[in-house]
């Protein structure tokens, strides 16, 4: 089912949560709504679900205007951050709930068979008789997904689905959700504030800030061509240097930096830690090492450059570098944004 948002607006009291968002989600895609808290991503998801009504604009499911269809008739599967499993029902009863209350009558054996099928899909065979309090967080979230899928939703919506889980379970569930999505081919929209999760999982990433879409595209597009300093900063560790553009070339102090510059004047240069190379001596930006942090696959160097700006970059684990050492930095890639 293709979903289209057309100039959707939502205001809570005086807070403008969503300020005119238009978005197309192709059928069968897995799309991430990514943004800091307060960016309106959850509100957008809840409006698509029908748990919140839009103050303005339209939401289309296929060709149908779904803006005013109440949630119970909208045919969406919704997975909540804190699972929202019914605590007084067993896992099996939770999964069966939607089938039991729906207008389409199903026979008992039919429901039981479907519950077993879904338990197999989410790899929880044999846990159907447990209560939610008796299973782990990761298992609960899988039950919540099975429950949402039981009613054959046209669209699957997930609100920070892995937010309450610890890092390892989170990574496993992420891969697993991708597999399930590829198996079922259901249009899926999920909300996250974790860029790694969005980039890992989604076909397309929609980055939001203050109720507006800042950029959308495939993970490769948003990573390689961030269209603003905000996106650059939000997607991962970024170093910022103040620069001056003169004659189409950017200068930090007196050192020229390889970057596409358009107009002359002050600008900001953004660099990923991997865009910087360290040499004890030679050409480049003069820097002095403040601290070295050891990580499993590399060493992270914290340094200051002339003018006092702080930079972080990574060097291979065998590199011999110490606090207080002076050296030179070569910049391999940089992105320039007008200040």
């Amino acid at each position, binding site marked *: 089912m293709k979903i289209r948002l057309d100039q959707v607006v939502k205001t809570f009291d005086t807070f403008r949560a969503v300020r005119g968002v238009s978005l197309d989600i192709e059928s069968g895609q897995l799309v991430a709504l990514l943004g800091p808290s307060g960016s309106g991503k959850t509100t957008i998801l809840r409006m698509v679900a029908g748990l919140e009504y839009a103050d303005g604009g339209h939401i289309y499911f296929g060709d149908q205007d779904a803006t005013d269809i109440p949630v119970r008739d909208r045919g969406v599967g919704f997975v909540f951050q804190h699972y929202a499993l019914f605590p007084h029902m067993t896992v099996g009863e939770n999964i069966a709930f*939607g089938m039991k209350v729906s207008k389409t009558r199903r026979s008992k054996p039919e429901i039981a068979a479907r519950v077993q099928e879904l338990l197999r899909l989410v790899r929880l065979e044999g846990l159907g008789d447990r209560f939610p*309090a*008796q299973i782990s967080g990761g298992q609960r979230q899988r039950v919540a997904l099975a429950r949402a899928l039981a009613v054959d939703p046209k669209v699957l919506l997930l609100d920070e689905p892995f937010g309450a889980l610890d890092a390892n379970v989170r990574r496993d569930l992420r891969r697993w959700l991708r597999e399930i999505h590829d198996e079922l081919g259901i249009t899926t929209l999920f909300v996250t504030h974790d860029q790694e999760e969005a980039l890992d999982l989604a076909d397309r990433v929609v980055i939001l800030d203050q109720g507006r879409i800042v950029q959308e595209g495939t993970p490769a597009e948003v990573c390689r061509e961030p269209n603003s300093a905000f996106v650059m900063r939000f997607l991962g560790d970024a170093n910022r240097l103040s620069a001056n553009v003169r004659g189409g070339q950017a200068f930090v102090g007196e050192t020229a930096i390889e970057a596409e510059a358009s107009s002359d004047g002050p600008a900001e240069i953004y660099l990923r830690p991997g865009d910087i190379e360290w040499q004890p001596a030679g050409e480049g930006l003069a820097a002095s090492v403040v601290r070295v942090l050891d990580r499993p696959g590399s060493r992270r160097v914290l340094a200051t450059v002339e003018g006092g700006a702080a930079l972080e970059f990574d060097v291979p684990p065998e590199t011999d570098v110490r606090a207080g050492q002076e050296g030179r930095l070569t910049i391999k890639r940089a992105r320039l944004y007008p200040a």
Partner: protein
Amino acid sequence: MKRNVLPGLPLSLGITLFYVGLIVVLPLAALVFKAASLGPSEYWAIVSSPRAVASYRVTVLSALVATAFNLVFGLALAWVLVRYRFPGRRIVDAIVDLPFALPTAVAGIALTTLFASNGWFGSLLAPLGIKVAYTPLGIMVAMCFTSLPFIVRTVQPVLEDLDPALEEAAQSLGGSDRTIFLRVILPLLMPALLAGLSLSFARSLGEFGAIIFIAGNQPMETEITALLAFIRLEEYDYQAAAAIASVLLITAFLMLAATNLLQARALRYTARS
């Protein structure tokens, strides 16, 4: 040795147990002891006398009706107080506790004045042929009044803690409002409702002050069991008073045991295995 987190546990445990023994168990034991000093046949004759049986009937029936009434309105009141924001909500919330705080005799006198045939309510009901004061209906009204806070106050916190996402999840799965209330909200409120129910019923069984003013206290008709025990006491017939009181005690005890059992059943999903 395993160290306790709280200091002075043996001391505080000792004091608590001593206190419970002194002010709860001892008087009850004395009551049972007194009643037991009667022979079985004497005891049976007293507790099964027609006047006593009539008092059980009117007390238990009125308490059942009052509790059923409070179940519906107490739940509705708790619902409104938790779910809606309206001017005066805090005042209503405070008024709910009034029956707790008010001396029950005051409540009894106020209700009698209102429901007497020349009172504000009574004069309106009289043309319809409904008499409240000096009838079992009056007993029910008094019981309703004094036991209303129990259901409201037990259900309210549970309702407040109910995760709104549960209802949203049920909605997204296609549940109607009715289904959601019956299958999701009500089962989750059940333990609290049962607790409120048993407290409300026990309070109604034992209520004295509010009822004797409005009931008329006609033997065989509007005489409650607690009053009968009191009358025997006035007659210096301590054994008979104790025997009748022991029936109330046993009823309340059985009722609490039954609701505790039901509550445990309703809460079995919270057990981790």
